[in-house]
Every structure is written in structure tokens, then in C-alpha cells.
């Protein structure tokens, strides 16, 4: 599987690959876990006693089949896979919540034994008590936890609410507190299950920034997610798990691509059948132009973006849809658009093998200064699920200018603040 495109992201991934040479801090060898799901669950002694001769029959669910991998010191390691693939099970085994049936996991350093934020918080206790309790749960001693109390509350910005019972906190405050505890516990290895499911986008962003900072400090982060944008923008390496088996381990871009292919490629959806052929379309080029028609790397704030992308079909693409997403550097989608082929009367909506398509034009530019990228999805048959090619990062550009602001875009707001005439 190879792409003709050399994107900034994969260069970055290569630059990070030196981490793989670092010492191993997590080593999993042939880890297997099978859940036995009773066909009939005996929840009481009575049921058990009423059917003394019934053999308990089980359906075996192979959550993990001989998974092996290594995580190195200072790595941001992603585990991706869809629901039920076994990705959370491996995390729970690492966190000593489940016991592996076979295989071995070894770890170096102190582990934050949490896989979700705010676990163990007691709403009846004050934040002070909760922070200390959680600190101890994180493996600190009581003195140590008490010593870090102020730092935690400062980080969460909740210093003045120390003696408030947690049940009186807003959910936002609670999440901030939980996150602060986790960060200040200063564990060597953090295991995180879908952290982004908690809190809003801004908070998720803050989390990721902090994780990045932790990584610089030599901490190791293992993140389980099915949000590919996160994997692509943060992970050094990623592992793809499917049906309890490791399908891929390595470059996060590639892992994300394979994840998409598994999910959209028709597996589990027999109607469409089979896997999508490796490459149905090939990217010929993608570039930006300024108003004068010159190719540019970066875009001035407010100047329209001249957008140019060219694909070549390798197989016939029937009813193709070309989708483009503009995302911030951290994977937050800003906007996007879809295009179908412009057709003359009676022309079939097909891009024949070998034919090229150019998607070009001017895009209004309301983006605030910052780093953005464009990703694309080509699908066939007008259903977004049938993926022909997913070029993860098509373009990578910086908007420069002098008018920064909150968020990612500037929107005109015809709003005035007027002093009301007195009563």
C-alpha cells in the first residue's frame, strides 16, 4: 500500500520514529482474553438449584487473540478499532482491571491505573477530599497527595471551591478537576480510553496539549480511541485491532487509513461485499493558488483560496463523490464540501479508469491565523460509506495575518453595544 503523496504529516511521523529506538516501557506478548458468555446466566442460587443437571453452556467471545506489541518510552501510542474490536479489553488488561487468559504483559514505571476521567469521585465529598483520595488511587502516598492538592486545584482553576461538595460542581468543573488530578499524579504511563468523549472540544484540545507536554517530559501515553483525527494528529504509532486481532502496527496515518477501509470497506456489510480494491483513485496533485494564479504554500488571512486537486481513476468510479474537509492542525473540523462530476446532457456519471478529474475553484477564506489541513474522501455510488480512496492529508497550509481571534473562523457579526436611554 503506497501513496504517491508525501504529506507533511507522514514526514512528521518519520521524524518521530526515533522514539522507537528508546527503551521499551510496555511489552505485551501473545496476550489473549476470552470472555465466556453464559447462554443462560444463573443469577441466583434458586435458578442454579432448579437446574442442577443442566450443564452450563457458554458462548466464547474471543476479545483478544495473541496480541503482541511494544511501547517505547515517551511514545504517544494509539490503539484503534471499532466497537467490540477488543481495544478496550487490551487497555483494561494493561490497567490490571481484567486478567489475561494467556500471554504476558510487562511494564516499567508507575502507571496511572485509570482508564477514564473522574472514576472514584464521590459526589458527597468535597473536592479536597476527592483530590486526595484520587491521588492515592493514582499511587501517591497520602502526604504526597496532600502536598499536590494546591497544584491540582490551581491547574483546574478551582482553588476557591476547595470545600464545596462535588455534587454541587458543574460537569465542566468536575471534568477539569478529574483531569488536573490525573496530570498532577505525574504517572510515567497513562492509559486513556476515549478521553475525548468527556467534555467539549475545547477541553479535549487542552487535554491533548497537556498530553503532548507530558510526552516531552518522557511520559508515555496509550490512548484508545476511534477518533482517527486524534490518532493522526497526536500519535507516534498506532495499532489497529479488529476482531481481537492486531491488524496493523506502525504509522498512525496508515493505521487510520486501514481503519477507514475496515469500517467503510464493506466488511460486515455483505450487500456491498468484499474489500475495496487497494487504490481506486490516485492523487495526481493538490495545491493552492493565490488570486494571481501563482502556487502558494501559505495563505494570507482574508484572501480567497485557489483550490486545486487532481485525481486519476484506476478503476471505473460510478457516481463518484469528492468530499473535502478543512481541519485545524489538531483535527477539529472547520468546514467541508462535496462535489460530484459536472455532466453534460446524457453523459453517464462515471469516471473511467485512467481518466482524470480536477476539482478546482475559489474558496472563501474566513479562517483565522493558524495551521490547517485538508483531507479528502472519495466515495462511489453516492453513498459515503463506499470508500474509494481516503487521502488523509491532502494539503497542509498556514493562514497568516494579524487579526487572530477565538476559534478557527471569523464571522461577521452586526452587533452593537448601546447604552440604553435612562428610565
Amino acid at each position: 500500500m503506497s501513496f504517491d503523496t508525501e504529506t507533511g504529516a507522514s514526514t512528521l511521523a518519520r521524524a518521530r520514529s526515533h522514539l522507537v529506538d528508546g527503551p521499551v516501557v510496555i511489552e505485551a506478548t501473545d496476550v489473549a482474553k476470552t470472555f465466556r458468555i453464559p447462554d443462560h446466566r444463573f443469577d441466583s442460587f434458586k435458578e442454579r438449584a432448579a437446574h442442577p443437571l443442566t450443564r452450563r453452556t457458554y458462548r466464547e467471545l474471543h476479545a483478544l487473540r495473541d496480541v503482541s506489541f511494544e511501547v517505547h518510552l515517551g511514545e504517544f501510542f494509539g490503539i484503534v478499532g471499532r466497537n467490540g474490536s477488543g481495544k478496550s479489553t487490551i487497555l483494561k488488561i494493561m490497567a490490571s482491571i481484567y486478567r489475561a487468559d494467556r500471554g504476558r504483559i510487562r511494564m516499567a514505571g508507575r502507571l496511572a491505573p485509570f482508564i477514564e476521567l473522574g472514576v472514584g469521585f464521590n459526589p458527597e465529598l468535597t473536592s479536597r477530599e476527592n483530590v486526595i483520595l484520587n491521588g492515592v488511587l493514582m499511587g501517591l502516598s497520602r502526604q504526597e497527595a496532600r502536598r499536590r492538592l494546591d497544584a491540582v486545584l490551581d491547574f483546574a482553576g478551582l482553588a476557591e471551591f476547595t470545600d464545596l461538595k462535588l455534587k454541587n460542581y458543574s460537569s465542566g468543573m468536575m471534568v477539569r478537576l478529574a483531569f488536573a488530578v490525573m496530570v498532577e499524579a505525574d504517572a510515567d504511563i497513562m492509559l486513556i480510553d476515549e478521553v475525548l468523549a468527556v467534555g467539549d472540544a475545547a477541553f479535549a484540545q487542552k487535554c491533548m496539549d497537556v498530553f503532548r507536554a507530558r510526552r516531552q517530559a518522557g511520559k508515555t501515553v496509550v490512548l484508545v480511541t476511534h477518533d482517527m483525527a486524534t490518532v493522526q494528529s497526536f500519535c507516534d504509532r498506532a495499532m489497529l485491532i479488529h476482531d481481537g486481532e492486531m491488524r496493523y502496527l506502525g504509522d498512525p496515518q496508515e493505521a487510520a487509513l486501514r481503519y477507514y477501509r475496515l469500517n467503510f470497506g464493506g466488511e460486515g456489510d455483505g450487500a456491498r461485499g468484499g474489500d475495496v480494491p487497494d487504490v481506486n483513485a490516485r492523487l495526481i496533485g493538490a495545491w493552492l493558488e493565490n488570486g494571481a494564479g501563482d502556487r502558494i504554500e501559505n495563505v494570507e488571512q482574508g484572501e480567497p483560496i485557489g483550490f486545486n486537486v487532481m485525481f486519476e481513476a484506476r478503476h471505473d468510479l460510478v457516481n463518484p463523490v469528492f468530499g473535502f474537509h478543512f481541519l485545524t492542525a489538531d483535527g477539529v473540523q472547520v468546514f467541508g464540501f462535496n462535489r460530484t462530476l459536472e455532466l453534460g446532457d446524457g453523459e453517464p456519471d462515471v469516471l473511467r479508469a485512467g481518466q482524470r478529474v480536477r476539482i478546482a475553484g475559489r474558496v472563501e477564506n474566513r479562517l483565522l491565523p493558524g495551521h490547517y489541513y485538508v483531507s479528502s474522501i472519495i466515495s462511489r455510488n453516492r453513498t459515503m460509506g463506499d470508500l474509494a480512496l481516503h487521502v488523509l492529508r491532502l494539503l497542509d497550509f498556514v493562514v497568516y495575518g494579524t487579526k487572530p481571534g477565538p476559534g478557527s473562523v471569523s464571522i461577521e457579526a452586526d452587533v452593537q453595544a448601546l447604552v440604553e436611554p435612562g428610565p
Partner: protein
Amino acid sequence: MTESTLELRDVNGPSALGGGLRRSLELLYLIASTEFKRTYFGTALGYLWSLCRPLLLFAVLLAVFTHIVRLGSQVAHYPVLLLLNIVLFGFFQEATSTAVGSVVSQEAVVRKTQFPRLVIPLAVVLTSVFNVGLNLIVVFAFILAFGVDPMWTWLLFPLVLMLLFIFTTAVSMIVSSLYPRFRDVGIIWAVFSTALFYATPVLYPLQKVHGTIGQLIAFNPLTPLFELARRWVIDPHAPIEGGALNILVPSAIYVGVCVFAVWIFAREAPRIAEAL
């Protein structure tokens, strides 16, 4: 992180004391003490309220058994004996019945963190230990007020307490580890512990019961503890019932329960998260 901490160590999965003994002890103390503080400092009359329950029960039973049934008429210092017994059995009942659902009620912690499983029932017992400690102060005030003279054998009373704490812990471990898989343990235990209340010399001294029932009660592992407490704290002249059998059988049951508790908890602990 220094090189020395980079040594790879095996991850063995969840267990009774997973995550290290020190962490388990710290957690145990923290959880029990915050829970204790919560009951006592949450409301203005927190401590008084929780003292009210045994005292009220005591008042009712005292009225019934001295004026209606006249069970305590020939027993020396019957009122304070009754109070002491009620507080001791109240501890056992409170701890074990809270422990039954404790692992399930801590579901989030069990399923999402590496939490030493044993800490959950132990914290319940420890909270009750704090409670019974406070209650015993009141009990001893009553004992003195009712004219029982302090004796050197009072120094032996902590031994009885210790044996009671251990037995309570063992029973708590059994019921809390079985409950996630067999939910009717909750109901069974509620009934069983009530039966045990009458099958233990709480309302009456053992000397008052004869025949087969008396023999059965004598085999109850809690019986020697209550009989010892009576002799050592209140009435040194209380008769000792029965022979060696009345010591051997309850002791054997006591040890058996403790061994079974350790075995079943160690067996269930690694899989508790999966049964929830």
C-alpha cells in the same frame, strides 16, 4: 525517569491487593475515614443520631425483657450486658450487611481502575470499627454508671474485639465476593443475620438455654466471643457452659470461615470486574 525504574515488571491482573500493599492500606484508611466523617460530620447531630439506634433498641429490649418476659431477672447487670451485646452484634450486622453490596456499589471503581478488591469490604468493616469504637465509650460509661467495678480483665476485652473484627471481616469478604455472581446473597444474608441475632447470646446468656437448641447456639462461632465479653467486662462469676466441645466446635467453624473467606475472595477477585 531514571534507568532503574525502567525495569520491566509483570502485570498480573487484578487481585485482592493489586497495586501494592502500601497503596491498599492508604486507600483502606482514606475510604473508611472519609466515610466515617461523612456520617458524623454531615449532619449537626450526626454522631448522636448513629448512637440513637443502638440506644433505642436497647431501651425497647430492656423494657421487654425485664418487664414482660423477665429474661434478665436472675442475670447480674442484665441492662448493661444487653447494651454491650447489642453494640457488639450491631457492629457485626452493620458491617456484614453493608459489605454485601459494597463491591457492586463501587462498580465504577472496580471496572475502570486498578483497585485492590479487598479494600472494598475491608473499608466497610473499618468504618464500622470506628463506629463501634465510639459506641463502646458510651457503653463503658453506662457500665460504670450501673455499678460495675472496673476489673483487670477489661484489658482482655480488646482480644474479644479483635476476634470479632476478624470474623466480621471474613464474613464480609465471603458475602461481598459472592454477591456480584449471585444477587440473592443479599436477601439470604439479611434473613440469615437476623436468625443469627437470636442464635447468639445477645438477649440472653447461654446458661438460660438448654437442650438441643442450647447445644446449637453453643456451636455458633460468635457465642464464645459474647460469653467471654460478658465474663471479662461485666460479670467475672458468670458460669461457663459445657465442656471442651463448646470451645472446639465454634473455634473450628471460626477458622473454617476465615480460611474459606480468603480462598473464595482470592478466587473471585480477579474476575469480579467481568461479573459486574
